[in-house]
């Protein structure tokens, strides 16, 4: 299950989507909006996305996960638009027969999502706002950017 939505994310739905009868473990990661960053008080975040490509890149991340870890399921949900402090902007769930693969694969998936999925966040403070520059995505078939 791969989802980009302006609606609140439902972790139970994602867990059930990735769990198979062969799964003995599900690791679930919540990315949550925090009230400060780099010493500045954050009021809320706003996310922009290229939805069609974001879904494609989420599936690529899942393919990478399946190639590297013995997992039984991978799912990703990302919220867009305005997200308040304490709300969840990202959910990543990975299931596997044994727990080690779920933990490791979930960590890997979160890192890769932040590197290649075209989603952006803007921090809104009391006295201003700024789009956060993260990771320059690598171009397939070329060396990764320095």
């Amino acid at each position: 299950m791969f989802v980009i939505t302006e609606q609140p994310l439902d972790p139970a739905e994602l867990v059930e989507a990735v769990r198979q009868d062969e799964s003995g473990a599900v690791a679930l990661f919540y990315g949550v909006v925090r009230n400060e960053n780099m010493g500045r008080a954050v009021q809320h975040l706003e996310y922009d996305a290229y939805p069609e490509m974001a879904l494609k890149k989420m599936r690529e991340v899942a393919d990478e996960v399946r190639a590297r870890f013995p997992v039984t399921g991978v799912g990703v949900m990302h919220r867009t638009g305005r997200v308040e402090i304490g709300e969840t902007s990202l959910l990543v769930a990975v299931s596997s027969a044994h727990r080690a693969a779920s933990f490791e694969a979930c960590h890997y998936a979160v890192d890769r999502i932040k590197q290649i999925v075209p989603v952006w966040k803007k921090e809104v403070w009391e006295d201003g706002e700024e789009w956060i520059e993260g990771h320059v995505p690598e171009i397939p078939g070329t060396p990764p950017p320095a």
Partner: protein
Amino acid sequence: MTTVSIRLYAGLQGLIGARDISMELPAGATVGALRERLGELYPAVQAFLPTLVCAVDEEYVAPEHVLRDGDHVALIPPVSGGCACS
């Protein structure tokens, strides 16, 4: 001529003041040529060009990629999805 439509995201949308623009380029123009033209037309974007990646058909492409008439190009600033949890 090659006419492409360009979609802007995040901070670039605010800089240029539109979600979508279109651009005419000589036939056979590359993504690199589009980037140069973008910097000429919108000087405010020049500071962003070094870290800007272009996507065509929902895939990141290199500057040498040749554009076709009617292509949809997305300008992708450094991505920053998820939480501020790194």
